[in-house]
Every structure is written in structure tokens, then in C-alpha cells.
């Protein structure tokens, strides 16, 4: 299909010469390219030549700038490997990856990496600073930020994740949840265009998880950042723009949260928990309540119980 933008159509109607039209065509195709901040085409990965198991099996995925994409799938489905190919931590065996208009090669790896901040589940091996504050500042020092601005940014980031009180602690002596907060403060301060979170809040208590989640939502909004998150948390998945489902190294479904939640019980196989109301529904059915088949939110479930009780 040939795509002709309004710009080109206007130019053609005005009868401008072909060189100009060509230039406009090039510009618009570039615009369309850069709208997708990540493009993966036919990406495959295996550990070694001898081991034929494909960890990624011909993956095609485009992510738009400013999108919040959740990747779900059972453990071992290739989610972490997929995100590691995005910043070249893993080089695909086949296929190509374009980040913000630049195809990733071994030569330009380092400049591409600047655009992507990754936080892993276990940030233990990511710390470089002697204190929490130093560590968060490290990324900013690297890009040559002025000292005053750096200090403000670091403090702001640590305050946002409730870690300012622990700014002078050694990262190694933090608890698991505090380490995750410190690592997240690092990307809040440096604000890379693309943030990849790989189970990055798994050690936080539910309230702490909510605080971090809200903070990331805020900075995404402020700077139009792109977020890619691997999670098993159904509430987090629910708030994202798109859910990508992986199984055995392949993308098996892509859809809005509503579309994916319609899978019901199959969500367990896809690596997500079943919503509470669905589990309750099964228990209610087991003791003889004539519960409806369709998906009910918690509120709708309460309403249903009220109506059922009043009819009894």
C-alpha cells in the first residue's frame, strides 16, 4: 500500500516539481519511522549454535513514542531476553532492531544505550556509587550535567521514591525493596527516553509499589517517555496502553487491557494472576450461588450479591 500524506497530496495538487515532492516523501517517511521509537523485525535469539532452542522466535514488535507497554507471559517465555535485545545487552541471532530511527549495530551500541534506562528485578549488580546519592548521581555525571542541577535532580528523585532519608547509605546494606527504590530513583533522575522495568517493583510492599508506579506515571507524562514494563501485577497491566503476551519465545497476542482480560482463566497460563472477583466467583459457584458467566469487576460483583440477596 502506498501511503500519501496530506503534505504530498497538497504538493501534487499545486503542481510542484518532482524533486520537491521526492524530498517531502523522504521527510514524511522519516517522520513515520521515528514515530515508532522501537521497531523489532524478525528478531530471533538462541544461546549457542549447538543448542537449537529459540529463546526468541521471530519476534516483530513496534512501540510508539510515549506508549506504556506491559509485557506478560509465564517465566521462561522470553520476556527478559526480549527487553535485553532492546539495548544490546543481548545481540539477536537474527533480525533487526531500530531504536529511535537508528538500526542497532555493535558500533553504535553505546549511543543507543543512552536512550534506554533499564531497571532489573535484582538491582544488586547495577550499583556503582559508594552511597545511594552517588549512585543516583552517577548517570547524570556521565552525561556531564552541571553540579547544581544534578544535586537538585538527585534529591527530587530520592524524595519521590521515599529514599531521601537513606541517601548516604551504602547500596549494599539496603534491604531488597530499598535497593529497588534506589535503582528506580536512578532512572527518575536521568529520565531516559525509554524506560524498561523488568519486575522492578517485585520486592516492594503494596503501598511502596503504588508510590513508585505513580511516580513513573508522572515522569512519563511530564517528558513523554516510553515505558516498557514486565510484570505479573494485574493492576499495573490494567493501567497500561497495550499488553504484549509472550509464550515460548513468541508474541502470541497484543491488545488493550480489556481485550486481554477477556481471556479469563487462561490468564494464569499467560503468567498473570486471575482477578480477585473471578476467583471469588468460582468459590461462590462451588457453594451453589448462580453467578453470571461474564467478567465482573469487584464493584459489579458487590452489586450482583446485593441484587441476589434482595431476591432471595
Amino acid at each position, binding site marked *: 500500500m502506498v501511503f500519501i500524506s496530506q503534505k504530498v497530496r497538497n504538493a501534487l495538487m499545486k503542481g510542484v516539481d518532482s524533486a520537491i515532492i521526492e524530498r517531502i516523501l523522504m521527510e514524511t517517511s522519516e517522520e513515520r519511522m521515528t514515530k515508532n521509537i522501537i521497531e523489532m523485525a524478525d528478531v530471533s535469539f538462541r544461546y549457542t549454535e549447538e543448542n537449537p532452542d529459540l529463546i526468541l522466535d521471530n519476534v516483530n514488535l513496534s512501540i510508539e513514542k510515549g506508549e506504556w507497554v506491559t509485557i506478560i507471559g509465564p517465566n521462561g517465555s522470553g520476556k527478559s531476553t526480549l527487553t535485553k535485545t532492546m539495548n544490546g545487552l543481548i545481540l539477536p541471532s537474527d533480525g533487526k532492531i531500530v531504536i529511535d530511527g537508528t538500526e542497532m549495530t555493535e558500533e553504535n551500541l553505546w549511543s543507543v544505550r543512552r536512550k534506554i534506562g533499564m531497571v532489573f528485578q535484582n538491582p544488586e549488580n547495577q550499583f556503582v556509587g559508594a552511597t545511594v546519592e552517588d549512585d543516583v548521581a552517577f548517570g547524570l555525571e556521565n552525561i556531564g550535567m552541571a553540579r547544581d542541577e544534578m544535586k537538585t535532580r538527585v534529591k527530587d528523585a530520592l524524595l519521590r521514591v521515599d529514599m531521601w532519608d537513606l541517601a548516604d547509605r551504602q547500596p549494599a546494606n539496603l534491604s531488597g525493596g530499598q535497593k529497588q527504590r534506589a535503582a528506580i530513583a536512578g532512572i527518575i533522575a536521568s529520565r531516559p527516553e525509554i524506560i524498561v522495568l523488568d519486575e522492578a517493583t517485585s520486592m516492594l510492599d*503494596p503501598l511502596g509499589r503504588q508510590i513508585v508506579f505513580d511516580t513513573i506515571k508522572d515522569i512519563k507524562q511530564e517528558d513523554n517517555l516510553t515505558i516498557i514494563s514486565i510484570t505479573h501485577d494485574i493492576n499495573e497491566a490494567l493501567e497500561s496502553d497495550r499488553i504484549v503476551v509472550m509464550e515460548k519465545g513468541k508474541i502470541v497476542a497484543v491488545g488493550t487491557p480489556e481485550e486481554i482480560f477477556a481471556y479469563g482463566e487462561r490468564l494464569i497460563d499467560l503468567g498473570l494472576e486471575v482477578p480477585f472477583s473471578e476467583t471469588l466467583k468460582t468459590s461462590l459457584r462451588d*457453594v451453589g450461588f448462580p453467578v453470571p458467566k461474564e467478567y465482573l469487576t469487584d464493584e459489579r460483583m458487590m452489586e450482583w450479591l446485593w441484587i441476589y440477596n434482595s431476591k432471595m
Partner: protein
Amino acid sequence: MDIQFKNVSYTYEAGTPIQHTALNNLNLTIKPHKFTAIIGKTGSGKSTLVQHLNALLKPTEGVVRIGNRSITPTTGNTQLKALRKMVGTVFQFPEAQLFGQTIAEDIMFGPKNYGVKPDEALAIAERTLKMVGLDASYLERSPFDLSGGQQRRVAIAGVLALEPEILVLDEPTAGLDPKGQHELMQLFSRLNTEMGTTIILVTHQMEQVAEYADDVIVMEEGTVAKQASPREIFSDSDILANNYLNVPRTVAFSNELAKAYGWNLSDMPLTTDDLAVDLMRYFKAKKEARYEG
């Protein structure tokens, strides 16, 4: 085998400007053969506490007693080998400690270290691998070609291979998919009920506490804020609020019903099955009351 902490304090980097007290004059008893959950905010001392159970950390002050063994600030490392066979610990992200060329080698390391012969150690490796849900075909594979979730299982198999009497689990299911979480929790529960293994679980998931724990310890600023049954803990709104703890979804839903409709279900439902039974009972009672009235 009782576990007792008497006036235990632990300070990180003691004597330096960055010293920080993680346990503060803590006293507690953990009963043998029970499933005990330890909960609390991040940084409340949960992990520091459990690292004392196999003497990975020794108290700065006070005594930890495990059965008839005592760990004090001056206990020497040579006295700890027998203790460490008795207390198996699955730390946070145990997969980071895998090192073997093959999975078999990794799991066999512990038993061989305690004098088990190689062929017997291999049989143990095969058996424990099966317990964590991986078949014998994994034995000769490299642990590093596995997914994070599978690596976690291998690391847990390595701990189970020593057949510990006390199994300490520090957020063992963090980051696993819900199905994997459920399978591992079922395994720990079976070890507890069938083999009598004492289980000590650090977790943020109140549903796990509700479903599996006999006893709950709430940690707050390096000391025990409360130790009680799950039901008592989840009905203590002060302790929950002070420690940023939430109640299990079933309890939250039941509280919502009470608030919105004035339905006061008799029991504190810890599972959806409990909640369904409570609701059925409540509705029937109301219906009967209506007929009589």
C-alpha cells in the same frame, strides 16, 4: 526445635559514621513444625532477622538459640557447619548464587560437602529437582541457560538437597509468575505438613500469609511489633496501618460489604472459599429471619 532470640541487636558497619541498627533488642520464639510468616515494611529488619537463623549474621548483642545451639557475638565460624545443615535458607534471588557447570553439579554440591557419596548425591539431586517441578532431563543442562524462574527452582532444590529441619524463605516467590508462585508455595506447605519442616517465610503478599501461615510476626524498626495468628493480625487495624500492611483481598472485600450494605459476616474470611461459605450462611440466616419476622 525451638528458635529463640533473646535481646538480640544487630548493627551494620558498627563503629563507623554510617553505622545503622537493623535489629534492636529483639525477643521472640518461633515454634517448631509451624509455618511462620514474617511481615513488615521494607527496611524493618525482616531479612536481617532471618539471616541470623543460619548465622550468616551473628548478633552484635544478645543470643540466638536454635534447639540446643547458641549463636552469640563471639561464636566461631567452625561451630556453624552442623547448624547450617539444619537450617536451609533460600535468600532473596537465590539464582544469583548458582555456579555449577551443570544443574546436577550445583545441587550435589551441598550434600557432597556434608560427606554424601556422589551416586547418592545424584539421586538426591534428581529427587529434589522433581520436587521443584523440573524433570531429570535438566540434570545435565547448564543452570545459566534457564529462565529466571527455572533458575530460582534449581537454587531452591540446592537448599532442599540438605533436607533441612528448618527452612527459611526470604521472599522466595518475588517476580515469579502466579502459577509458579502457587506451585512453590504448595511445595513449602507440603514440606511443612508432610515432613514437619519448620517454615519461616518473609513475604509482602498477605494472601500467602492468610493461606499458609500458622503464626505471624510483624517487624517494625528492628523489633517485633506483634506476633499472633493471621486472623488476629488482620483484625488489628492499628498494627496494619502503622506498618503499611494491607489485608488480604478477601478481608478487604468483606469489609467493603460491611461498609456498603451493613452485612457483618461472622468470620474473618482468609480465602475466597471461606468468604463464599460465609456469604451463603449469612444469606440463609437473613432469609430465615425474614420468614420468622
